[in-house]
């Protein structure tokens, strides 16, 4: 398909492509794709290029990867830099994976179909723990060693970023360096260093990888895993985290963007040919969340809250809609209702969009009369389902987790919604939260029952006879995450959770209520990875070698096999999951600094046990530590 035979290109035949599910995953060429023509010319004519080649890697399949906003942001930021060419590479699905292994084809980028080995940098965007093993898949298919220490000077630099890197320890030693926090600025700074590094390779005194890392480690937000070592006690807990070079900081601080109006946002992202998971354009309202739900990692690691100005937002919204041709624009943030100019924003955007048959989707909206009217406005006459996430069944437990939503909030907004003709309601809860009792579990059923009763009351009153509510109750298993007040907590066991599910299912029995739950085994394994330490790397690579990957896919995840591998390494699940940690224990991520102090998290934990809530910080600062970034809500 390409006339440039001198360019190193992975060739797939028509037969290859037609033999796999959805070949559109592998062909690239979408609207918005960036290919640097000057780089192609150099490669064609000189066989080499002065461009810094960056392979932006996402360890999951196309449809997932392309739905991710961080990927769109980084793709733009990198390609906007002069002399940098960023291309995309994703996990090939199992059918293509098999084909590539059979035919000894290396993993390639979509833009130029170049093997990953041809790149200067491989940058992995890590969004969830269960994708760790697919990092190995991508490296393996590229013939690149898993451990940074095993790679040579000529191998690509392998880096990572994304929300799970705040505890990257289970696979930290894979990466030459890790970007903590928001990447827009620090990546650009790192690219400047890379240019020097790459240029020096053509001189008599090439810069070594070691000196590149040393320079990079001076940038705020850059963590070099090989600068730290971990020592363990006989009981498996960490004895100490030591720095191995004198210039390594005791703790590495995450990087944030202080002013979101000053960084570029992708208003012309790649528009896939094929349907992806979230097939819409995204507009980011703000970063961070000040509510402080105690189970939520995002609520702490993205602090402080920083908003985009309404001017920036509207401008980007129009550009995005025009440039992509999408008929749905989704706004993105951790809590849409908290955006201070939301009413103005919608006043400005909704009508012009409606005229162009473009809809706005507003996820994570707190429901009240205002938002109901809003939803009607943005989604036309479509009465799609309403979603609530009370997370816990009783007020007591909601106070423990600091989820600022009351049963009355839910009932009063549902009363309005039912009267307005809505009939589908989804309720999300967690089971296994700290301090949970059976009373809390049954509280979930009580809420669902109340919702059911309310529906019929309203229907009778409004004369909406013969209509029925559709109520879905969904529970997931609580997973203690690093950098939350619950990072010290024990996770509930599968056995106990099963009992709770059984009791709940019994209490929920009704024609109008459906109960669904997440796979418990997945949650237990995710919990292990989330709070794991460096001893897990051998476990994970070993499991990968035995064919265990695509763990994020329920039908691929093999829990029993993983347990076997874990035990063969002398480690136990309960050590990582069902064990509560003491205040003094050194946690595997203690050398990482997200701005929020550990002492603050511990204080919040104490508040949880006292069943006391903490109000959101836009009502007054709680002195969590993030004010040191000198920006956002802390300085409002």
């Amino acid at each position, binding site marked *: 398909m390409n006339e440039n035979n001198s360019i190193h290109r992975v060739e797939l*035949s028509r037969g290859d*492509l*037609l033999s796999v599910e959805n070949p559109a995953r592998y062909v690239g060429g979408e*609207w918005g794709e960036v290919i640097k023509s000057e780089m192609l010319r150099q490669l064609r004519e000189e066989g080499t290029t002065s461009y810094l080649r960056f392979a932006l890697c996402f360890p999951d399949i196309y449809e997932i990867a392309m739905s991710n906003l961080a990927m769109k942001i980084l793709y733009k930021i990198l390609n906007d830099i002069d002399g940098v060419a960023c291309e995309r590479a994703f996990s090939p699905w199992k059918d293509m994976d098999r084909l590539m292994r059979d035919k000894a084809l290396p993993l390639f980028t979509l833009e130029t179909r170049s093997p990953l080995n041809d790149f200067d940098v491989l940058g992995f965007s890590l969004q969830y723990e269960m994708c760790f093993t697919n990092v190995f898949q991508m490296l393996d298919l590229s013939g690149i060693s898993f451990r940074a220490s095993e790679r040579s000077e000529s191998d690509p630099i392998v880096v990572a970023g994304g929300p799970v890197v705040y505890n990257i320890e289970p696979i930290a030693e894979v990466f030459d360096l890790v970007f903590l926090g928001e990447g827009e600025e620090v990546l650009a700074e790192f690219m400047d260093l890379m240019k020097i590094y790459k240029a020096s390779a053509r001189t008599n005194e090439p810069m070594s990888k070691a000196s590149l890392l040393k320079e990079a480690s001076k940038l705020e937000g850059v963590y070099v895993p090989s600068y730290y070592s971990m020592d363990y006690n006989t009981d498996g807990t960490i004895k100490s985290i030591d720095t191995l070079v004198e210039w390594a900081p005791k703790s590495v601080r995450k990087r944030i963007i202080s002013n979101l109006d000053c960084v570029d946002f992708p208003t012309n992202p790649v528009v896939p040919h*094929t349907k992806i998971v979230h097939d819409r354009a995204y507009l980011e309202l703000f970063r961070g969340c000040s509510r402080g739900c105690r189970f939520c990692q995002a609520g702490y690691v993205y602090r402080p809250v920083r908003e985009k100005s309404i001017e920036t937002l509207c401008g980007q919204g129009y550009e995005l809609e025009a440039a992509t*041709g*999408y008929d749905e624009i989704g706004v993105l943030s951790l809590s849409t209702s908290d955006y201070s100019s939301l009413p103005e924003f919608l006043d400005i955007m909704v009508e012009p969009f409606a005229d162009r048959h473009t809809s706005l989707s507003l996820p994570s909206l707190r429901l009240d009369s205002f938002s109901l009217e809003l939803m009607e406005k943005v989604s036309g*006459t479509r009465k799609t389902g309403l979603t609530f996430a009370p997370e816990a069944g009783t007020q007591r437990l909601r106070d423990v987790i600091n989820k600022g939503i009351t049963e009355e909030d839910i009932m009063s907004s549902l009363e309005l919604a039912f009267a307005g003709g809505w009939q589908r309601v989804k309720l999300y809860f967690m089971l296994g939260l700290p301090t949970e009792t059976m009373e809390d579990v049954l509280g979930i059923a009580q809420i669902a029952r109340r919702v059911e009763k309310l529906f019929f009351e309203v229907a009778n009153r409004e004369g909406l006879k013969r209509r029925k509510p559709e109520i879905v109750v969904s529970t997931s298993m609580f997973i203690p995450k690093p950098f939350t007040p619950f990072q010290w907590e024990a996770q509930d066991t599968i056995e106990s959770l099963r009992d709770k599910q059984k009791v709940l299912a019994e209490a929920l029995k009704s024609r109008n209520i459906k109960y669904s739950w997440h796979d418990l085994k997945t949650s237990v394994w995710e919990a292990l990875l989330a709070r794991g330490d460096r001893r897990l790397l051998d476990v994970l690579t070993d499991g990968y070698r035995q064919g265990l990957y695509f763990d994020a896919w329920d039908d691929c995840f093999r829990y029993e096999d993983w347990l076997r591998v874990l035990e063969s390494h002398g480690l136990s699940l309960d050590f990582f999951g069902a064990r509560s940690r003491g205040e003094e224990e050194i946690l595997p991520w203690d050398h990482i600094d997200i701005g929020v102090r550990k002492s603050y998290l511990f204080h919040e934990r104490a508040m949880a046990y006292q069943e006391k809530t903490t109000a959101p910080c836009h009502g007054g600062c709680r002195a969590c530590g993030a004010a040191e970034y000198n920006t956002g809500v802390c300085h409002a």
Partner: protein
Amino acid sequence: MLENERQIAMTMKPHRVAQIFRARFARTAGIVYIGHLDLMRTFERVCRRAEFPILYSQGYNPRPSMVFALPLGVGVATTSDYVDIFLEERIDAAIIISRFNQFCPNGLRLLEGGYVSSDSGSLMAEVSAATYHIASPNIREYTEKLLQRDSIMVMKRSKGKMKEAEIRDLFLEVSQEESEPHSISITVLAGSSRNLRPDLFLEAMSELEAYPSIDKDNAMVTRTALFMGEYPHLEPLSKTYS
């Protein structure tokens, strides 16, 4: 309340007569590997980016009004396919073509087109035959052998079930170029009533004549013409607007 207002607004909307722009398009390169639904979505987005005054369908979930002549299979290229784009107002054909091509992804291209009257038949119903160019080793010899048969029975999926079907009578013409010894063009019945998909033809050759399956899988298939009318009086669809 809100709902009532919307209903009133809808009924007050003046009834518009659609301007139907019939375009001939080509697709090559990577975009041949997308399915028909994805291709439709891609066309919709191109038209939105190009800011054409597209007419939207009425009802629950309004979509841009567009009709394709004949779905293209995954992996099939085309140099001559047709789409009707329904517009609220007439725009110069040259402008439509150049703007479309400016906003469409690599491999997709509008070649020509013109307006057809709104009472002309539906594009889908007009299609009666199609020509496919197939490039693959020794395809000529095998085609000749296959077409010597009086009956060609193949397994065909219809309504989810595999069923045996006779395809011999779907073949209309076979032609070949001197300069391309390893390719062939077949003209076959096409459209909503009787239709031969090129992969079925290749399948039959592999089943009945033992055509090597690696060649079958890698054959380059390109639709090169779509016709209306009854054989042997076929006329290219482009006749409808030129």
